[in-house]
């Protein structure tokens, strides 16, 4: 493709300013988003803001707008596929939520016909007697009204459950991803550049961290740092004995409970990022342009800058992808540390065959993934001219 790409001749005014236009479009979108009626559901507001931004971009950067429209179309299509899977897959799990809800109630009932009647009544009340397809349309309809339904087991609105769980997961994952990405990339770059002993220590260590199953690694952390050395509390998100949720003691217990899952997750991310960065940097260090620049008398310091700028590009998309997995990425770790995040909630929902809650959790995960991917599609063009020309090429 690059071989045959002709020189692009852009009008002077538009050259080199995509960032400006994107910023303007984002700002306009944000203004409209906040100006909208507070009663409109969040989903509609986001959709409308996205529409406004797309239109603005199509006007200011026609080729890029076209690229963006294409991407958005495909992401929307993907969203609906994900929506269907989110709905149907949990309902294919063997078992029945009503059985679980009625487990305790049924204990005293010996009359089989009464038990069946009670069960059927629940099934009818929950709408589970309708066909799956019919249920799907009801679910989708409610979703567009901003309704995620009620959790069958917790008897609370799914939206409320999600809202209370997501901050816990984000609190672990967001800092872990950012710190892990930064440290991992620095270590990987150093290993590739310095080689020798440095590489011989960092590389195997990173390989170990990134390939050991995260639940095994976090169990080991739990065993050593938590149980054997007793440095950290081993269970939950805070000390349940503290009643005053405003006290300093409570915040300290929050941090203490947060530390171990955070450290485990960060180390795992460092391992993966360091390996990726090391191999990218090695590849770039051997690129032909490095040789040419060296033989043109360019100083090593400057060439190293070229190399690491180019090597970090794929890592940036890796960063965006892991940010997309932010709400769900820590599932296994949350389960090991009994941390009250979304991941743990998802597992409990699956155990209880709690259809609306499972679908709600997976929906949030799908949406964050898609949004992260869309954002990286847009942002990547700003940092890599090769992608930019692919984005703006008429096709």
């Amino acid at each position, binding site marked *: 493709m690059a071989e045959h*790409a002709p*020189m692009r001749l852009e009008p002077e005014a538009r050259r080199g300013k995509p960032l400006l236009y994107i910023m303007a479009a984002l700002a306009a979108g944000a203004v409209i988003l906040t100006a909208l009626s507070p009663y409109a559901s969040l989903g509609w507001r986001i959709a409308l803001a996205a529409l406004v931004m797309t239109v603005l971009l199509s006007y200011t950067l026609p080729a890029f707008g076209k690229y963006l429209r294409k991407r958005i179309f495909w992401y929307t299509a993907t969203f609906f596929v994900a929506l269907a899977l989110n709905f149907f897959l949990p309902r294919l799990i063997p078992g029945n939520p009503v059985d679980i809800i009625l487990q305790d109630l049924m204990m005293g009932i010996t009359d089989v016909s009464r038990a069946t009647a009670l069960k059927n009544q629940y099934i009818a009340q929950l709408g589970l007697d309708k066909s799956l397809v019919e249920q799907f349309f009801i679910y989708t309809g409610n979703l567009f009204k901003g309704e995620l339904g009620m959790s069958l087991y917790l008897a609370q609105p799914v939206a409320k459950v999600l809202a209370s769980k997501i901050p816990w997961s984000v609190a672990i994952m967001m800092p872990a991803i950012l710190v892990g990405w930064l440290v991992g990339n620095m270590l990987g770059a150093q290993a590739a550049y310095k080689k020798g002993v440095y590489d011989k220590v960092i590389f195997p260590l990173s390989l170990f961290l990134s390939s050991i199953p995260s639940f095994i690694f976090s169990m080991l952390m739990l065993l050593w740092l938590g149980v054997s050395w007793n440095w950290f509390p081993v269970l939950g998100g805070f000390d349940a004995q503290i009643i005053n949720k405003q006290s300093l003691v409570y915040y300290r217990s929050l941090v203490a409970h947060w530390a171990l899952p955070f450290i485990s997750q960060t180390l795992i991310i460092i391992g993966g990022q360091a390996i990726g960065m090391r191999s990218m940097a090695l590849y770039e260090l051997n690129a032909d342009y490095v040789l040419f620049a060296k*033989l043109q008398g360019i100083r090593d310091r400057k060439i190293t800058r*070229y190399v690491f700028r*180019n090597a970090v590009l794929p890592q940036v998309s890796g960063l965006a992808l892991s940010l997309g997995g932010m709400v769900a990425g820590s599932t296994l770790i949350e389960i090991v540390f009994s941390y009250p995040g979304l991941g743990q909630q998802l597992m409990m929902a699956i155990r209880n065959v709690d259809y609306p809650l499972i679908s709600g959790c997976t929906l949030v995960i799908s949406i964050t993934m898609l949004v992260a991917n869309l954002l990286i599609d847009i942002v990547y063009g700003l940092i890599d001219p090769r992608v930019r020309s692919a984005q703006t090429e008429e096709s």
Partner: protein
Amino acid sequence: MAEPILSVRDLKTYYRTRLKENVYAVDGVSFDLHDGHVLGIAGESGCGKSTLSLSLMGFYFPPLHYGSGSIVLNGTDIMTLPYETLRRDFLGKQIAYIPQAAMNALNPTRRISRYVVDVLSEHDIGTTEKQMLALAEEKLTFLGLPPRVLNAYPGELSGGMKQRTVIALATLLNPTVLIADEPTSALDVSSQKVVMAMLHRMLKQGLVKSMIFITHELPLLRHVADEIAVMYAGEFVEVGPATDVIFSPIHPYSHALMGSIIVPEEGMKARSLSSIPGAPPNLKNVPPGCRFAERCAYVVPECRMPDPVLAAMMEEHQYRCRFDEQELRGKYALEVPAHV
């Protein structure tokens, strides 16, 4: 004869393998390059052509290492210079290099103009960016490239254009010696022609004083080179005026090599192409005596005795064989012509 611009004596460079073995890819190369001349270096894959071109820059990085020998450029032995002097005053300035794979020779995420500034500022040329870019623009225009190339990223240029841009960048500072390592091997014939015309023009206008042109395409050398060196297993086996080497090679290897290529000439159609049997020796473990002995049609037991040396450097046409020219010509005359 006038003082040569570049004089290389007994240059030996080697690759250090992971097992700490030294593989001499350039093993005792000597030649002189005169003002306005083009030296063509020919040879099959793996004979050390590209290693030689890198070695001539006087700048080594692992796994390539400097063994011994001298590279005297305009009276200065560049092998004795500290790196910083070599980098600032020679690399890219007096001695320039066009890489084999020009397609990827430019940083894909840097505009050409930024790269120009990087190169020129490393040699303390021009005080402002504007001056530097003016110099580059002048060069590009001279080479028939539109100035808008400066504002482009490498990915936005077509293959031929990228190659010409690389040549323009390599010769920004009018180098004394330009080393071109198969600059046309990745191009289609029309781009090849443009590139060759460009190199020729630079030489004629004195923008480049002399050139070393490395290729495996012998017919190409016939048109550009004044002298040709035939390389085999890290050594020059024959050096001489271009037409002599191509049309009446003396060394058995050159003879066999010329017999195995298509030259668009009368009678060519009727000939069958011969190929040289066997493969070049493993440079890790070079046999004593003539390196071509294993594959030579005229080998005698003495060939495997210690090294036949290249004839005296003063002679115009040199070759590395224990037989003299008359003997070899006699053998070639007896050869069964390879008619179909």
